């Protein structure tokens, strides 16, 4: 316990402003969740369009994250380890999807993956289309959320002393072996935290998805991702959108709590 001192005027003003800020974030979230009774939430969850939407959203975000791991982690490693001309520029490009309007990102993706364009044609050749499909949702999610994974993984690799890899090499490890036995296990926590962040960001994507795949067929259902479903329901009024919005917030919140738990465990170790 400290000795009680009379708070100065600045502390008082800052605490009041800070409290307003916190309330602005908290109250809408809490109110949305509690505006629907648990029974209403449960019944909403049992609606076919809702649970199919939740499944679609979670699976598409997971798929996007896995693709992000496969393509993003090697890039993160290169950015953490190599010095080259134009590296700053590259790092800036990676963060561009975060700052551009996401509906514009959706349009941009269609310019490449649309069935009239080269990349789209190549994928069509192997049976993958993007317009109004699951694959389209996945690339939309991936585009807007993969910067979080790359940045986090990059910081993770940077924190691994390059000498550990060098020692591993002298002990007989190939570059692959040094990566999988030393760098990857040591950066794993950052990569995992980045993955959860990417996944959670993917879950909440609306703008890019609504352009590429407003709805998609998924295991026989014709369904939409949760954020699109919320917007759809809002056309009929706030009371229709409320329970779905509450579910969407709850799911994202759970993902976020998992992330914080992992990050906190890392701090203690």
């Amino acid at each position, binding site marked *: 316990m400290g000795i009680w001192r009379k708070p100065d005027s600045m502390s008082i003003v800052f605490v009041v402003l800070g409290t307003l800020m916190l309330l602005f974030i908290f109250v809408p979230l809490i109110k949305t969740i509690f505006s629907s009774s648990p029974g209403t939430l449960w019944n909403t969850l049992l609606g076919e369009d809702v649970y199919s939407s939740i499944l679609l959203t979670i699976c598409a975000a997971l798929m996007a994250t896995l693709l992000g791991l496969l393509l993003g982690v090697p890039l993160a490693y290169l950015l953490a380890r190599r010095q080259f001309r134009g590296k700053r520029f590259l790092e800036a490009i990676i963060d561009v999807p975060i700052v551009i309007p996401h509906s514009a990102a959706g349009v941009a993706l269609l310019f490449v993956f649309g069935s009239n364009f080269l990349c789209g044609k190549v994928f069509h050749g192997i049976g993958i289309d993007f317009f109004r499909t699951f694959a389209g949702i996945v690339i939309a999610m991936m585009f807007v959320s993969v910067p979080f994974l790359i940045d986090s993984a990059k910081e993770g690799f940077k924190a691994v*002393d390059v*000498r*550990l890899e*060098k*020692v*591993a*090499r*002298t*002990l*007989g*490890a*190939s570059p692959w*072996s040094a990566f999988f*036995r*030393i760098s990857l*296990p*040591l950066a794993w926590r950052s990569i995992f935290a980045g993955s959860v962040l990417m996944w959670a960001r993917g879950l909440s994507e609306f703008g890019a998805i609504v352009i590429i795949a407003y709805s998609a067929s998924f295991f026989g259902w014709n369904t939409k991702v949760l954020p699109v479903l919320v917007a759809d329901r809002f056309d009929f009024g706030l009371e229709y959108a409320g329970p779905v919005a509450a579910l969407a917030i709850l799911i994202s919140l759970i993902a976020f709590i998992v992330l914080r738990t992992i990050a906190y465990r890392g701090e203690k170790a």
Partner: protein
Amino acid sequence: MIAIKKLKVNLGGFTLQDINLDIKPGEYFIILGPTGAGKTVLLEAIAGLYPVLEGEVWINGREVTKLNPEKKGIGIVYQDQALFPHLSVEGNIAFGLRLRKYPKQEIKAKIAAMAETVGIPHLLKRSPVTLSGGERQKVALARALVTEPKVLLLDEPLGALDPETRERMQRELREVHRRLKVTTIHVTHDFEEAVALGHRVAVLNDGSIAQVGTPEEFLRQPSSEFVARFALSRNIFTGRAEDGENGCALIDIGGVRLRAITESRGEVRLSLRPEDILISQEPLQSTARNCFQGMVTDIADRGSVVYVTVTLPPDFVCLITRQALDELELRKGVRAWITFKASAIHVF
């Protein structure tokens, strides 16, 4: 044997070039140089961990310059030890053995033997993050040695240790080297460390090797001002130690018998700091145990301080202030007394 021929390495700001070294099998070779001279990079270049611009590295009659580091048979120990934090001590030592796909039993046996050699059998189950600096250094040494490298590279291995641990590790390094006889290249900026451990020493300055020789040669014939600065700051002698009175040792360094406080007997190497020697015109009545008369043979001016060489023989280099030089009226050819305590003598 290791031969380094005309090696050239780019360090960003400057280059190491024209590095030529011949290191004998089983030799303990020291590369001595100031901080920032590129010592670590030179080691990494030898290990294949840093790109070489020109020149060749030969190990046991085979050119290995472009060989991948994992194929070279080189062990490295860094100043900060670079232990794998996610593995136990045992896991760290086992790392190289597992990659070589030794049978489990053999790995266990090799680890146990190596742990015994460096004195860490009780630490095997611990995590490296819980160890002290000296303990970590031993683990790093065991990890490098257990794969039986042809060459052991030590990058300032004692630099991060406190003085007491440092001295103990110095002894253990020498002991381990005596037992395993692995050819060792050890880089340091510490001349005393070089003298204590090195069979031969190369001095690195301005991106190239300034001189190669035994520690004594550095004292007698420093090839440059730079080397002299490293070496002149120390008096280093080789002699035979035997029992003296009152538990002191008497060390015969060729004509002069010094009283020293040490447990060592037989062939020893010792150093004496120039600032620990007093110069006077008459013999001093003091508690100091060593007092000899000699002749001033050299006076080296370093600004506010002066290095005075007094030859008995051998030569003793003493550090005095300019003011003391004037008061004592020292000149070349003048006879003078030198006095120093038995405890000022540092036996390696």
